[in-house]
């Protein structure tokens, strides 16, 4: 059996042993001595002034240690934003304060008002119900298209609720392209809002040691150093040496655990105030209204083509939801991580995008697996597929005709990025092969005989990973560098400890990074330990997101290994009494070239720490090196995905029959882990396409606030996936040749699935449809297109007659159907909001929108706490 602990080997994961035995070390598994618990009283309403807040009764309740309110955080900063986008007029974006606790006004359901600290969580929660809050309710801004004219401002700083109005690309060139086009393909679409939902809810424990004035924060984070910097420097004013941030085992992130959240600052400060550790663990319902959401764009996109089907120009006019406050990376997602990817795999010469970012009374929106690239890929690949249909060229030829050729790299796109490598025809060929595209007509005919509508859809994506270099992102508004750091500590007897600034929360770095080091040093992986997640022992690094860990963090490790080898050669030369230039390092041995004289790696490391025979005049003892790696460019994974679906015309149910993914990730270190990353990304992409949608009603209640209504992909919703990564054009600018694989699946799959459904429904006259493709929405589209009767022939039953009003929902509507225009402020109620008194027993948060289905009739009238707002009619399919 070949060695698997080298680059390219499918080494089994080392971290699995503890996870499989129930010995993972997640934050909620930790209890600190003397720990108290905090329960956050959160706003049950989307937009209101806090007319009165009375905590007296709660403060006296059993077990309560202390209740902290906004007043306790007056001296501190708000939750900072890490990226400043500049308006088309050169003005900086609107950047209102995001307080730790709501200061006089709540801006979304879930906005924290105060934190009740008690000796048990149950006591904290019991006491929170005794807090009396009087809200002056304001109309909620929910719908983006009407937000500018609603007359209601989420923040005074942005009266029209526009955070920024950004333009990018060559507007004039695009207009010229469109004016000379033989054909224009246009679409209005939404990119549905999603809740990231890592399975581990967020958790944070603050701890304070007054003997050394030391703060420690244990938190579910993808990047502990970033949290230390943001929270220390911008919120609490704590210098780095007084603050340690630990992110141990973290149960998934997908972006949502990148950001610095208010709860982290709260527990860190509270631990000092109350003199004991303070722990907060979100429950799932709380996660839905406090974790940053993802996506949520409303878009109009147009593609100009010449008579032969060549793309001439692309125009995009979009709105992106920021939510109520700017989360850490939020402004960059719809702009620099989206606009720059609009060339896709194509030679489109002229591209222009206008992007307006909107404040609304919803949870902040930030990066979620893919972050901007899924939105770009979705609009582009929907347009391209439609162009293939309208021109008659079909999905394959329309793409091939416009692909950037493999001999055209490096390729400068009109949207400011330079693709270093790629071979788009190769991944298309591979996808056609593994999907057995040639066999599709037979499968479609067989499905038809069973009364099912079968369709096939394509998506050829390109994305950008390992956002860099720092100088460029700084110019674009990033307030941080985007390098990564690694320290290699060779221990005296030759074992190796690697300290990485990357963070693993499912990606398997403890395995992959060990393979990289084992490969480079010729050592068995067993002698290598990977340490991450603790600012007390890892060098300042930027953490894990944007599929950057191997390409950036792994490259930092390689650079540090190179330094180790360089120094070791000097030591070996001394030990072997040879010239340094004659020393070669092979298979873990330092050899004098052309002789049999050699020293093992461990002999050299021992000499470094026991420098009895050592070039001490020229060289320091010890063998430990740190490298910071700042990439020259992004990496550009790309591929083609092909989805096949069957639609049940009787119910509108979409069944994903197969999903083939042919990816080019450059060089692959561990194919087993890469495939696992793709599988997970595909599932999340399919989830977006078919199942998932975070829906707010017009009053700002999150209707999909639990797993009772937010449909997570389950095993039976998905097929076995067909994945391939054998097409490899190595990245040209990092030492591993690696591109990044963590997000591709989530980026490439949604348009493939939607295109497949449109292919299936096309014969019935359905032209467009928005995600998610819920059964009701698909059925309504079929019915509205008048195809119902034809479609159901052969099914068990025909369609019932339906009223048109019920059918239009979700078909070809660019806006969220759920989002009705916000009531104009002219109404007296809005102009002079009547205080809504929330009685003590009604302050329980989320009582109405956390609908646990089986409510009990006999207890309901007494115990059910009804939010004193207008009755909700659930709409919006």
């Amino acid at each position, binding site marked *: 059996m070949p060695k698997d602990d080298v680059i390219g080997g499918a080494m089994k994961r080392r971290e699995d042993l503890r996870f499989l035995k129930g010995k993972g070390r997640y934050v909620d598994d930790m209890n600190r001595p003397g720990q108290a618990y905090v329960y956050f009283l959160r706003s049950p309403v989307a937009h209101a002034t806090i007319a009165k807040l009375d905590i007296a009764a709660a403060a006296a309740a059993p077990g309560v240690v202390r209740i902290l309110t906004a007043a306790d955080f007056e001296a501190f900063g708000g939750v900072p934003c890490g990226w400043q986008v500049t308006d088309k007029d050169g003005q900086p974006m609107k950047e209102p304060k995001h307080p730790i606790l709501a200061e006089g006004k709540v801006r979304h359901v879930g906005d924290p008002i105060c934190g009740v600290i008690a000796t048990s969580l149950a006591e904290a929660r019991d006491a929170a119900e005794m807090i009396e809050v009087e809200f002056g309710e304001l109309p909620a801004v929910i719908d983006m298209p009407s937000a500018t004219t609603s007359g209601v401002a989420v923040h005074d700083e942005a009266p029209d609720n526009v955070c920024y109005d950004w333009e990018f690309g060559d507007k004039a060139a695009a207009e010229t392209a469109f004016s000379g086009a033989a054909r224009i393909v246009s679409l209005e679409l939404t990119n549905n809002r999603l809740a990231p939902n890592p399975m581990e809810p967020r958790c944070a424990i603050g701890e304070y040691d007054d003997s050394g004035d030391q703060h420690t924060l244990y938190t579910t984070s993808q990047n502990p150093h970033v949290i230390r910097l943001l929270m220390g420097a911008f919120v609490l004013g704590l210098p780095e040496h007084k603050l340690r941030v630990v992110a141990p085992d973290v149960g998934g992130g997908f972006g949502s655990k990148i950001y610095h959240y208010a709860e982290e600052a709260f527990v860190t400060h509270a631990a000092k105030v109350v003199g004991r550790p303070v722990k907060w663990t979100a429950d799932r319902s709380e996660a839905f209204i406090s974790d940053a959401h993802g996506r949520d764009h409303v878009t109009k996109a147009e593609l100009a083509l010449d008579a032969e089907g060549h793309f001439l120009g692309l125009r995009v006019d979009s709105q992106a939801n920021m939510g109520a406050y700017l989360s850490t990376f939020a402004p960059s997602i719809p702009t620099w991580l989206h606009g720059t990817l609009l060339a896709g795999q194509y030679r489109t010469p002229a591209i222009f995008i206008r992007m307006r970012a909107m404040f609304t009374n919803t949870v902040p929106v930030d990066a979620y697996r893919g972050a901007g690239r899924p939105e770009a890929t979705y609009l582009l690949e929907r347009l391209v597929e439609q162009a293939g249909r309208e021109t008659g060229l079909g999905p394959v030829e329309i793409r091939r005709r416009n692909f950037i050729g493999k001999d055209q790299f490096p390729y400068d796109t009109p949207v400011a990025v330079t693709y270093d490598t790629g071979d788009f025809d190769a991944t298309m060929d591979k996808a056609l092969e593994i999907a057995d595209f040639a066999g599709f007509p037979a499968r479609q005919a067989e499905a038809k005989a069973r009364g099912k509508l079968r369709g096939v859809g394509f998506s050829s994506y390109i994305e950008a990973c390992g956002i860099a270099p720092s100088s460029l992102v700084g110019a674009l508004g990033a307030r941080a560098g985007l390098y990564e750091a690694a320290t290699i500590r060779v221990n005296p007897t030759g074992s190796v400890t690697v300290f990485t600034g990357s963070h693993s929360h499912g990606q398997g770095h403890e395995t992959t990074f060990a393979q990289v080091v084992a490969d480079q040093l010729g050592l068995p992986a067993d002698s290598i330990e990977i340490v991450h997640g603790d600012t007390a022992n890892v060098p300042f690094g930027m953490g894990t997101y944007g599929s950057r860990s191997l390409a950036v963090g792994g490259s930092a490790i390689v650079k540090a290994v190179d330094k180790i080898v360089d120094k070791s050669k000097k030591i070996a030369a001394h030990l072997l009494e040879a010239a340094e230039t004659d020393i070669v390092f092979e298979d873990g041995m330092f050899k004098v070239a052309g002789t049999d004289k050699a020293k093992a790696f461990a002999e050299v490391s021992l000499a470094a720490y026991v420098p009895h025979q050592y070039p001490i005049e020229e060289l320091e003892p010890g063998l430990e090196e740190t490298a910071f790696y700042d990439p020259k460019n992004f990496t550009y994974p790309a591929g083609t995905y092909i989805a096949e679906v069957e639609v049940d015309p009787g119910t509108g149910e979409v069944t994903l029959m197969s999903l083939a993914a042919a990816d080019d990730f450059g060089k692959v270190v561990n194919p087993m882990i890469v495939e696992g990353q793709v599988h997970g990304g595909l599932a999340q992409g399919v989830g977006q396409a078919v*199942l998932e949608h975070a829906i707010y009603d017009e009053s700002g209640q999150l209707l999909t606030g639990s797993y009772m209504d937010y449909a997570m992909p389950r095993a039976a919703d998905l097929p076995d996936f067909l994945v391939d990564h054998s097409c490899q054009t190595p990245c040209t600018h990092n030492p591993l040749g690696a591109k990044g694989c963590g997000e591709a699946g989530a980026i490439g799959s949604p348009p493939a699935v939607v295109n497949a459904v449109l292919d299936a429904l096309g014969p019935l006259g359905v032209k467009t449809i928005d995600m998610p493709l819920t059964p009701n929405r698909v059925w309504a589209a079929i019915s509205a297109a008048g195809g119902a009767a034809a479609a159901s022939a052969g099914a068990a039953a025909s369609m019932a007659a339906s009223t048109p009003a019920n059918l239009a929902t979700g078909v070809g509507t660019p806006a969220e159907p759920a989002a009705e225009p916000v009531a104009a402020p002219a109404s007296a109620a809005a102009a002079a909001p009547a205080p809504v008194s929330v009685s003590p027993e009604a302050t329980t948060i989320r009582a109405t929108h956390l609908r646990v289905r089986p409510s*009990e*009739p006999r207890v*309901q009238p007494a115990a059910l706490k009804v939010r004193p707002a207008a009755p909700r*009619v659930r709409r919006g399919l």
Partner: protein
Amino acid sequence: MYAFDYDKPADLAGALAALKAEDAKALAGGQSLIPTLKQRLAQPSTLVDLKGLPELQGVSVDAASVTIGAAARHAAVAEHAEVVKAIPALAALAGKIGDPQVRNRGSLGGSLANNDPSACYPSAALALGATIKTDRREIGADAFFQGLYETALEEDELIVSVSFPIPEAAGYAKFVQPASRFALTAVFVAKFAAGVRVAVTGAGESGVFRHAALEQALTASFAPQAVEGVAVSADGLIEDLHGTPAYRANLIKVMAGRATAEALG
């Protein structure tokens, strides 16, 4: 959850006595009640655990009916060889409730007493014309289900067992709400010598209900095609995120056809 006491009486008499306490509440499988309590939507003083009561156990099958103890777990019903043989659609329904872990805990009595508008069991009880035996009387299914979470049970009355008449044929077709896995709309069809009974769950604003027009059509001709000409009104059907009334009306018809096909094997 709010604080409460836990009580586990030894027999039915003990349970009935315990339930007389103010705000005492029965705990069956707990698969609906405990999540409800976690959301603090109810505040019982005491939970009276019924699962171990000897009077509520057991499954028996005779020529005319299947009788199932209120404490019978969904998984036990789904896997019970005699139930599978006598009323396969009933066993199949039990095997589709929730997920395997819910089926390992949830019970028939708890499901019927709760009468969730999207639960599976009420449709079988109603379509099969089951008799619900309580600690004090017998209630026919047509009289038992009285609206959203409402039943004919008195405040402190407990279901002991349920008898399901064995039909000539029966089928259950469930269209799953993709998040909760409850029925978005499901239809149970049961054919007896006297005619066909059709019960719909997941769709009605007042909970489970019988559909007269479908019953009429299927009584006239017990075939999937028989439902095609039936007009299913959207009036009184649930509107929520997952389905409009019109969509549910469509599903009623489609699921009725499929349940009939299922019944015909």
